[in-house]
């Protein structure tokens, strides 16, 4: 079954046409990288998948739920679809460990001992077990983002959305975060939709690359044909040559 299906999706902010006739299917377990210039609608598109932004028309099916339907319970979708933000959005009033354990406890009603065990394993996995008792304000950007990923994973989601996860980080922190993301992409059946300009990541673990501009999907290629061949779309070619030069 497909994890995410967009059928003729349109999204407006007032008069601004943010998403134009989006048609896109992402299969379970795929890692899809979404690129494009700023203002192209990448973030809007990714935010519609867990209902942080609502679509105006068309059909959007995530994990079998129709998001355009009024009666659809967004919280059910969000249990299975995690999200990692550009600015982390860690809970400032909670310790690192509590950041990870809170939602599993109150949303999934996970047993406390098991919850803690899972949380500590995840902290180990992202290399930050020693930060369990710290508050988010005491962490660097790279550490915060790894905690945010651990928080998402603690819900045992089927899919994680990454909205420019490395854009707010200092260069030396980026690799730590990308390595965690690569691990997730490699060793699980997790579906990943990643908005990023990190082409190394796309090349290494991506399955598909999607190029957006002006709210439209202009290119939807397998990784091989996108990088080794050439994008057929002129704007995508220009964009690619620019980001690869830098």
């Amino acid at each position, binding site marked *: 079954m497909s994890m995410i299906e967009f059928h003729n999706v349109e999204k407006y902010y007032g008069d601004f046409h943010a998403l134009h006739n989006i048609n896109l299917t992402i299969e379970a377990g795929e890692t899809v990288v979404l690129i494009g210039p700023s203002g192209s609608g990448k973030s809007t598109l990714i935010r519609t998948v*867990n209902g*942080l932004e609502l679509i105006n028309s068309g059909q959007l099916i995530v994990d079998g739920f129709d998001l355009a339907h009024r009666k659809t319970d*967004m*919280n059910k979708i*969000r*249990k299975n679809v*995690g*999200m990692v*933000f550009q*600015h*982390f*959005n*860690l*809970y*400032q*009033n*909670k310790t690192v460990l509590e950041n990870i354990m*809170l*939602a599993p406890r*109150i*949303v*999934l009603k996970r047993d406390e001992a098991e919850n803690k065990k899972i949380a500590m394993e995840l902290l180990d996995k992202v290399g930050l077990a020693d930060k369990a008792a710290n508050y988010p304000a005491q962490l660097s950007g790279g550490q915060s983002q790894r905690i*945010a990923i651990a*928080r*998402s994973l603690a*819900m045992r989601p089927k899919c994680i959305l990454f909205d420019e996860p490395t854009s707010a980080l200092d260069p030396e922190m980026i690799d730590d975060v990308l390595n965690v993301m690569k691990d997730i992409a490699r060793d699980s059946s997790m579906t990943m939709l990643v908005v990023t300009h990190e082409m190394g990541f796309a090349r290494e673990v991506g399955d598909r690359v999607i190029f957006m501009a002006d709210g439209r999907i202009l290119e939807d290629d397998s990784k091989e044909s996108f990088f080794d061949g050439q994008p057929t779309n002129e704007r995508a070619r220009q964009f690619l040559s620019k980001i690869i030069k830098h």
Partner: protein
Amino acid sequence: MISIITNHWQDLLYGLGQTLLCSILALFFSLIIGSFFAIFEVVPSKTLRIIARIYIEIFRNIPLLVITMFFYVVIPMFFVKVNGFTAGTIGLTIYTSAFIAETVRSGIQSVDPGQMEGSRANGMTFTQAMRYIVLPQAFRIVIPPLGNQFINLVKNSSVLAFVAGFDLMYQGNTIASTSFDTLNAYFVVGVLYLIITMPLSYYMRYLEKRLD
């Protein structure tokens, strides 16, 4: 001044007690009511937002004395008899809750919207996100302005004097008019108000420091 205290200490003590009781009751209920209306102002439901807006705009823009008189004079004409203390305390609670609602709302809105988004994306409901993440951060921000509201509340409880609520101000008026020693009577009353408000003021500062 000594004679005011020795001759009238029972009245003054009773007045202090009434003022304290009214303040504590009004503080407790206005904090709860105010917080609810603050939350109503930020919920997705438009109906609740409008209700909250109307409540707040009406009650913070009418003089406290008018609200109190409404409960003291108008309500007994049509419904039940209300004594001065009850009318004053209800009036003070409603009046203050409108200000507390505005204070708490501004606190909620100054919490980074990413906190709500992060919570919702993590699977929490709006209510859970409010309860565990947004409100604790909002209350921390609004402790100083809330302290101001609480101090104003204690001082505003002197509205009881107008409706025979037997509070400090009422006792002060009575003592002044029977002893003709107005200066000392109001001086003593002023000091007694300070005895309530100063510790409150220091406690709010202590809270503010402790949470940093």
